[in-house]
């Protein structure tokens, strides 16, 4: 039971990361690896604000804003120019990889390669029945549930949410209908970076952070997106939770050293037996990007 709860909380964070990646991926077809670097950036900004005596209340929104700007920079310097040249997905991917390297190395140059923590001492532990939860875990779980809830509500109910779904479906048609796809793209990149920052800060509060943790996080998001099915936000969320559960089971039954490998073996199995993902629909060969 303890493992299930731990896995679910981890899974909720993965789900949010999956949504963050899939927001960009399904609407713009950009394989946004640099999101991992933005993820790594967030706790450092927060740390910077705390060290300068501004506290959490200033630090967290500031970190989210800086990350959103970083996301915007990715779009303005890379993906929009590439999109204008109608470059193939490979070019976006390699460019994003380059941006990932640059941001990560800048972080390492400014703050060093070591692992850092946001809190000191042992975290407060709540005991409910026979389940023990650290405060950081509890907060992380609640925050990701709330953000997921708001996101889905917004996606279903609001005009802008509908535009997002339309863009995931067919961006060219949307621009022909007179919508400003350029601004929507900007918003997508900023929103996804903000979500990554939320996940990152919640995780950093629990287990600490270092410059190189971003890749693992974005890969979890990618796996959740592909497992869930391209273009399905709900699929990405469900797959994220599933991924968290399976990973914590692997840690419990085998060893933490196989956690990463297990993620990818799972991905390979899903791609092999259900290439369209758990919630995706099958596409014809010419339709596939």
């Amino acid at each position, binding site marked *: 039971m303890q493992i299930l709860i731990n896995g679910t909380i981890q899974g909720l964070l993965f789900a949010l990361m999956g949504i963050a990646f899939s927001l960009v991926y399904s609407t713009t077809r950009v394989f946004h690896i640099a999101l991992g670097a933005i993820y790594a950036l967030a706790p450092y900004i927060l740390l910077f604000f705390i060290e300068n005596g501004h506290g959490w209340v200033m630090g967290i929104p500031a970190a989210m804003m800086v990350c959103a700007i970083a996301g915007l920079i990715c779009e303005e310097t890379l993906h929009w120019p590439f999109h204008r040249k109608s470059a193939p997905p490979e070019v976006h991917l390699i460019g994003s990889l380059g941006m990932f*390297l640059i941001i990560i190395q800048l972080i390492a140059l400014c703050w060093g390669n070591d692992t850092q923590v946001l809190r000191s001492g042992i975290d407060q532990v709540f005991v409910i029945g026979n389940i023990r939860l650290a405060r950081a875990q509890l907060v992380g779980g609640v925050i990701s549930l709330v953000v997921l809830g708001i996101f889905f509500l917004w996606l279903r109910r609001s005009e802008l949410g509908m535009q997002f779904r339309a863009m995931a479906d067919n961006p060219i048609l949307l621009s022909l209908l007179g919508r400003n796809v350029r601004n929507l793209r900007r918003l997508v990149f900023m929103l996804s970076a903000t979500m990554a920052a939320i996940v990152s800060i919640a995780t950093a509060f629990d287990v600490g952070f270092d410059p190189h943790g971003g890749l693992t996080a974005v890969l979890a998001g990618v796996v959740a997106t592909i497992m869930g099915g391209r273009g399905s936000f709900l699929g990405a969320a469900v797959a994220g939770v599933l991924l968290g559960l399976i990973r914590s089971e692997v840690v419990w039954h085998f060893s933490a050293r196989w956690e990463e490998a297990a993620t990818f073996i799972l991905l390979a199995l899903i791609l092999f037996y259900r290439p369209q993902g758990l919630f995706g629909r099958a596409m014809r060969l010419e339709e596939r990007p």
Partner: protein
Amino acid sequence: MNYIFHLLIYFEIYVIVAMSLNLLIGYSGLLQVAHAAYYGIGAYTAALLMLKSGFSFLPALAGAAIAAGVMSLLVSLPTWRFRGDYFVMISLAVQVTIYAIMYNWTDLTNGPYGLAGIPKPALLNSIYATQESIFLFYGSIVVLLAGILAVLKQSPFGRSLQAMRDDELAARSVGLPVRLLKIESFLIASAMVGVAGGMYTAYVSYIDPTSFTLDESILMLSMVIVGGTGNVRGPIIGAAVLIAIPEILRFLALPDAIAANMRLLVYGLLLILMMHLRPQGLAGKYRFE
């Protein structure tokens, strides 16, 4: 002088790596980020054959080629039908999984402690211990492999690969065996990079899993992207440029802690610049479309 020969030997090894990766990216249109994993399989196979089974250098190289080739079959037989982003994901999965195996299968690979005391390269009874002799010996292997690739490129096989790269559906419609072509090109590229791994092992005589990480794969990818895809001279130029960069940075006398980060930062910048200005690389022929 030893320093120059040391660089030249590295250059020779990476020329093979970049040429084999170019066979995948430039000729078959498959973007792969697991090349360091196959390189590592070759390195470990050669090391284990020489250390534990008493093989001499050339049979161990052949063993390395076979092991990397068999691994490529294990991957390519189930996954040949994936393209674009999905293929990148699969290769990422392969990279992470193989790295986890190298790191965790301590009985065979000695895990993070690595394998030491690997014999220097030898041909028949003459052992090449000096840098100059290793340089000449490896040079002849490079020329041999480059010759094979140049012949392959002009052959019907090479032409079919390029046809498949340019338009897979059209290639299938004129009866080219796309599945077989992909599996074969993957096999050849992996076997070649396995040979390079064996050469690396024998030269440095100590290996551990950190030489075969995702960062290394990214370095290999950058070589091909920067140098150019789709012809023989592109990857050679790319290998030269990317080996020269850390050495130039060395002369700037940066502190050690910063040097590694600066190197990766420059790689990232290079990737982005290439994607903006010359997507086909410095001397390349093929650009992603």
